[in-house]
C-alpha cells in the first residue's frame, strides 16, 4: 500500500467513525444502557452483535462508544498540540530568559513519568471524558514544546521574518501570520499521532476502571467482557467487537499520520538506487 493510498484509507475509516459517532442515536436500534434482551444471547436478527451479561445490545453500545473515544482522542490531541505550539513558539521567538526558563522547565518535567501521573490525576479530578482529555492535553504537550520550539528557532532567522520586522510588524502579527503557518503542517502531524495515542489511553483507562462511568466506552466493555468470562465461555461477540473497533480506529489514525508525515518531510521518501 503506498503512502498516498494509506492516507486515503485512514481518512475514510476515520470519517466512517465520525459518522457513526454523530448518527449513533439515530441508527442504533436500542438504547445503549437499556436492558433489551436475554443476557448473553448470540448475534441474531434482533441483536446484530448479541447481548452482554446484563442483556444490553452490544451493537448499540459499540456505536455509542465511538463518541467517548473520539472525544477523548481528538480533544486531548487538540489541547496538547495547542499548548505545545503556543509555548514552543513563544519560547523560541522571544528567546533569552523566557526561552531559558521554558526549556529548563520542560527538561525537568519531561523526566516525570506521565502515565502514572495521569492515573493519579484522573482519580483526583474524578474521571470524566473532558477531564481525561484535558489532563492528557496538558501532560502530553511537553515533548511537543521541544519539537515546535526547534522548528520555530530556524524560522526566526528566516528572511521573511526579518522582513516583517523591518516593516514594523508587531510580534503578535509575526507569530500568527508568518511563523504559525509554517509550523502548522508539523503541528497537524503531531495532532494525528497524539489523537491516536490519547484515544488508546482513554480506552485503556476505561479498561483499568478509571473511565468515565457516565458514558459507554469501549475500555469498560472490554474489561467487563474479559473479567466476566467473555472468552472463557467463548462468547466472542462480547469481547471481540470493542477490541476490533479500537484497533481499527487506531490503525486508521496511524495510517493518516504516517501519510501526512511523508507529505511534509519529503526526505523520508528519498530513495537510493541500490
Amino acid at each position, binding site marked *: *500500500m503506498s503512502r498516498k493510498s494509506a492516507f486515503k484509507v485512514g481518512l475514510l475509516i476515520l470519517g466512517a467513525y465520525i459518522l457513526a459517532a454523530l448518527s449513533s442515536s439515530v441508527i442504533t436500534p436500542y438504547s445503549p444502557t437499556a436492558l433489551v434482551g436475554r443476557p448473553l444471547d448470540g448475534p441474531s436478527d434482533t441483536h446484530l452483535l448479541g447481548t452482554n451479561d446484563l442483556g444490553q445490545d452490544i451493537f448499540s453500545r459499540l456505536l455509542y462508544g465511538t463518541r467517548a473515544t473520539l472525544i477523548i482522542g481528538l480533544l486531548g490531541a487538540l489541547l496538547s498540540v495547542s499548548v505545545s505550539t503556543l509555548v514552543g513558539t513563544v519560547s523560541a521567538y522571544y528567546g533569552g530568559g523566557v526561552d531559558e526558563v521554558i526549556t529548563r522547565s520542560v527538561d525537568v518535567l519531561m523526566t516525570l*513519568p506521565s502515565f*502514572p501521573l495521569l492515573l*493519579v*490525576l484522573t*482519580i483526583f479530578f474524578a474521571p470524566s471524558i473532558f477531564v481525561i482529555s484535558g489532563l492528557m492535553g496538558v501532560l502530553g504537550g511537553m515533548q511537543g514544546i521541544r519539537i515546535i520550539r526547534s522548528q520555530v528557532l530556524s524560522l526566526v532567522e528566516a528572511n521573511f521574518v526579518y522582513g516583517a520586522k523591518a516593516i514594523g510588524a508587531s510580534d503578535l502579527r509575526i507569530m500568527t501570520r508568518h511563523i504559525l503557518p509554517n509550523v502548522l503542517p508539523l503541528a497537524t502531524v503531531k495532532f494525528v499521532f497524539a489523537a491516536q495515542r490519547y484515544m488508546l489511553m482513554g480506552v485503556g483507562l476505561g479498561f483499568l476502571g478509571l473511565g468515565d462511568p457516565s458514558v459507554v466506552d469501549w475500555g469498560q466493555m472490554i474489561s467487563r467482557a474479559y473479567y466476566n468470562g467473555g472468552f472463557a465461555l467463548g462468547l466472542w461477540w462480547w469481547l471481540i467487537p470493542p477490541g476490533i473497533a479500537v484497533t481499527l480506529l*487506531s490503525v486508521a489514525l*496511524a495510517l493518516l499520520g504516517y501519510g501526512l508525515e511523508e507529505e511534509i518531510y519529503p526526505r523520508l521518501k528519498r530513495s537510493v538506487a541500490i
Partner: protein
Amino acid sequence: MKAEYLMRRVLYSLLAFMISVSLTFVLLHLMPGDYLHSILPYLAEKNPDAARMFREQFGLNRSISEQYLLYMVNIIQGNWGYSFLYGLPVLAVIEEKLRWTLVILFPSTVLSIFIGMAVGAYSGWINGSKTDLSVLNFMIFVGAVPSYWWAMLLILIFGFHMNLFPLGGYASIDALDVGVRISDVLRHAALPITALTISSVPGTYYLMRNSTLQTTGEEYVLTARSKGLREMEILRHHALKNAMLPMVTVIALELAQMIMGSVFVETIFSWPGLGLLTFEALRVRDLPLLQGIFLMDTLMVILANIVADLSYPFIDPRVKVGESV
C-alpha cells in the same frame, strides 16, 4: 566542561525528583476519600477510638505541612512510609514487586531494542523497495494495536485455545509443594514478555528506520560503495554504527513507555509486578504506596536518562559528554 555538564545533569534529575515528590504528595493528599473511608467505612462512626488510633499510627492526624516535611526527610533516608494495603514498608513492597516487573521488563526491553534496530536498519537501508514498504506497513499495524489487546489475543490464542502457556500468574499451583521453579516462572513470563515486546518494537523500528535512512545519503556510504563493498557489508560496518547513535536516547524514552505498557500487561496477566501493584493501589486509594510507585517510576526514568547520557561518549568517541548530546 565534563564535570559541569554532569553536575547540571544531576541537578536536573534531583530537581525532577523533588518536583515529583512534591507533586504526588500534594495530589495524593487532596485525593477524594482516604483509606479509612474506603476500606472501613463504618469504623469512624462505630469506634472513634480505633479510627483515632489508626490516624495516629499512620500520621494522618498531623498538619499537611508537617506530613510533607516528614515525608521529604523520610524519602531521603529511604523510609518511604507504610502501605495501608500491605501494612509493610512501601519500599519493601515495591522492591519485591519491582523484581517481578524487571523479570518481564528487562527481557522485553532488550528484545524490542534488538529486533527493532535490526529490522529498522534493514528496512531503512532498502527503503522504497517492496519489502521495506510491506515491513513498514506491518509495523505501523502492529504499533497501532493497543498493548492490552495484544495481551488478550495472546492469552486467547496461546493460553486458552492452544493451551501452550498458563493464563496468568507467575507460578503453577504445585509451587506450594515443590517451591517456585525457574522453568515454571519462565513459562508464565513468556506471554507477558511477548506482549510487551510486540507493543514496543514498532517504536524502535520506526526511529531506527528513519535514522538509517539519513545515513544512506552520507558520503562515507558512497565511498564504501565505490570501493565495491557489498551492500550488507556497508550497512553492517559503516551505516549501522552511525545510525545507532540517536537510538541511545530512545532507550530512556522506551523505558517510560514500557512502564505504561506494563500496567496493562501485568493487570491482564495477573503478573505480580509494579503495574499490577499500581492497579491495586489505585483501587483501594493506598496513598503511601501510590507515592512510592510514582517515585520509583520517576527514579527509573531518571536513571535510564543518565545511563543513556553517560554511555554516549563510549558509543561515539567523537562526542564528548556535554557537547551537543
